Every structure is written in C-alpha cells, then in structure tokens.
C-alpha cells in the first residue's frame, strides 16, 4: 500500500514537472512525458483495483491540465484521458506474467508504444472534433518522439521503481528483478 501511495505522489510530481520541461526543438517540438511511464509500470506491478485508482488519478490530472473549453463546449470531454489510460494500462496489465518473470524490456518497449498510442488517441479525438485530419512529418514526430523518449527513460524508471518497491516492502515483485 505504501508503494501504491508513493506511485500516486510520483504521478502528481511528474505531471507538475512536465509543465517545466520544454519541448525538444530538434525533435519537431516533441514533448517529454514521464507520467505515462510511471502509470504503465503501475499497470504491470499493481493488482487491478489499485491500477484502476492510479489510472483514474493520472487521467484526471492530465485532463485537468489539458482540457480545452472553446465557447460553450469542451473540445475533448473531461475523462477521455482516463479512458485512454485505462485501455492502454489494461493491455499492459495483460503482460503481467512476463513482468512477474522479471522481463523488464517488455515494460520499456510497451511504455514507448503506449505513450505514443495515448498521444495518437488524443490527436484522433481532437481531429474528429475539428472536422479534419492530416498526418504531416511534425505530427508523426510529436506522436512518435515522446514514445521513443519514454522507451529510453523506461529502464531507469523501472529500476528506480523496483528499488522503491523493495524499500517499501511491496509484496508483488518480479521473481528476477533488476535490483
């Protein structure tokens, strides 16, 4: 339970930190997202009830800082990020047996893919609302770039969270971890 609370706090801190991390101009202004990497770790390490709470918290924060109210309508409904996180975390949760065997690379690769999928989901929803869709080089970079960065960050995050899990005596750990 302590580890779960630590994870909730980390998600909050990561969401605040993302305000201050400038987009990378050498990557067509791709943003750096830390929160999804934490959530997708949680998807593999937490049991379903706690995972749902974590997903709700992360999605709620993301919607709170990004929801756009244009005139008298909300561009993408508050809650859509929760739904996207829930679907992607559900997929990640299906890979839990691999995680339990200590296969850390699954988390890394899937964190990147799911981060990009999250952005693709948002882009498709806002394109639907705005009535037109296009995929330029910049769009692909802004969807794929954060995914690549998440893949690079994921081993470090995985290692740090494994350490935290052990430090807080979290009972559900891989049999063969990195620490």
């Amino acid at each position, binding site marked *: 339970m302590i580890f779960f609370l630590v994870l909730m706090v980390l998600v909050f801190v990561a969401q*605040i*930190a*993302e*305000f*201050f991390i400038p*987009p990378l*101009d050498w990557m*067509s*202004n*791709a*943003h750096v997202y830390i929160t999804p990497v934490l959530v997708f770790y949680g998807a593999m390490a937490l*049991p*379903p*009830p706690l995972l*749902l*709470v974590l997903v*709700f918290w992360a999605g*709620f*924060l993301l*919607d*709170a*800082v*990004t*929801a*756009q*109210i*244009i*005139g*008298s*309508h*909300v*561009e993408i*409904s*508050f*809650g*859509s990020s*929760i*739904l996207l996180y*829930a679907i992607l975390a559900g997929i990640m949760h299906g890979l839990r047996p691999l995680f339990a065997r200590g296969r850390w690379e699954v988390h890394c690769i899937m964190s990147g893919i799911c981060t990009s999928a999250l*952005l693709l989901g*948002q*882009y498709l929803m*806002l*394109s639907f609302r*705005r009535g037109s869709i*296009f995929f*330029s080089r*910049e*769009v692909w970079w*802004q*969807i794929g770039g*954060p995914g690549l960065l998440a893949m690079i960050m994921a081993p470090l995050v995985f290692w740090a969270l494994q350490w935290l899990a052990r430090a807080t005596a979290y009972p559900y750990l891989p049999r063969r971890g990195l620490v």
Partner: protein
Amino acid sequence: MSRTSIVVLVLFIAALGYLFSLGAGGTRKLQANVYQFLAPFLSSGSGIQKQITSVRSNLKSLDDLQGENNSLRVENRSLKATNQALRDVEHEVNRLRHALNYRERAVFKLVPAEVVARDPSTWWRTLTINRGKQDGIESDMPVVTDEGLVGKTTTVSANITVVLLVSDENCRVATNVEGTREQGIVTGERVAGQSPLLNLNFLSKQANLQPGQKAYTSGVGGVFPPGLLIGNVKDFRARELDGQAQLVPAVDLTKLEDVFVVVGRK
C-alpha cells in the same frame, strides 16, 4: 474477479460517467479548482526553473567574458552618443504626448502577469499566468504584450489563469490588414514546428498581400478590441475559392515571460 475489483470497477465507471457528463461550465469549474490546487506547485516550479536558467546562463568561459567585455565597451560608447540624441527626442515626445493627451487615449485597463508555466501538452498551445479572478480576470479576455496580441484567457481560478495562445488552432481572431480592405480570420496551426506561424483565412483571392504588411484585430466578435497587432504577412497564396496568408506572430510566443491581460476600458 474479486469482490474488491468489482466494487472498484463499478466506482471507476460511475466516476468516469460523471466526468463525461460534465458540460463546459462544470468542466471549467472543476479545472479551475484543480489549477487553484496546483497554483503553489506551479509558482514554486517556475521559481526553481528561473534559478536554474539564471545559473546556467551565468556560467560563461573567460573567453566569452573577454569578448562580451569588449563588445560592451563599444556598445557603451555608442549608447553615450545615442543617449544625448535621445534627450532631445524625449523632450519632444513628452511635449507631443502631453498635446495628444496620450494617457487618456490609452483605452485599455491592463493587469500585468507573469508566465509561470507553458505548454504542458502536445496538441494545445497554452500558458499559465499568475493572476486570476482576484485581479478581475475572467474567461475570454485578451492577453497582450507591448509587441502585440498573445491570446485570450480560458480557465480562470482565484489566482492563476490559463491563456490560449493565438498560435492555437482553436484561437480565432477577426483580422484586417493594414493598407487594404481585406478582412479574415487568424487561427494557429494544429501542429507547429520550431517557430509557429498563423494562418489568415477567408481573404479575397485578389488580396495579393505583400510580405511585411501588418495584420491587426478588427474587433469583430467582441473578444479582442480593434487595433491590436497580430503579426506580419509572410506570404500569400490564392486558393480555389479564397486567399490565405501566413503570418509571423508579432510576439515571440516561445519566450514570453510577462504579459498583460486586458480587463476592460479605462
């Protein structure tokens, strides 16, 4: 599936359903409350970021300092000469300003604000500023700098406000172009590269705007008062039914630190 899982799942779906059912008013209120909660964290984060940036920019090599010293000496001599000339100009400006009763002609009541955070997402271009309802700010108020239009306020909490930048596709500004009768709507691009440009749509095909022409707010729509500089024309192209110009924003939206919110007329 355990009983706990089922209970949590039901609560999850209920809460999600509630959030989905929120209208614009409810979402705005909820978002304002969350921003109010985040305000101290954003302010602290902004302070830390400024300190880090300041330390990083102060770390210069001796060669850099020597070069900077030399150029400052040259600049100092040049400024001394300019200063004398400006004294005369200042006198004349004061005289003219007095004559035109400039202060009374400045119709806007401005609230100065500091940018505390920017662009937390990929698809929407926003800023967060450290002023809110307590300072008389409301939704849909124009945000400007001395260089031109920045955007408009959207979510406003007690002492923090989200500003939708003019470079966002959702920010639409009725515009006219200097020296012409052309009117159009400026919007941002959905996905911008390193330096965002603005699209000026619904011009006539014959507009033939030239690079460097200035585009101002026309005042149509009621949100933005007329006469605020939006940007300069970069290029123009005639399309099948209308004309479209690309504008370079008057304000460098990537480096904003201080802005003014137009809260009314004097």
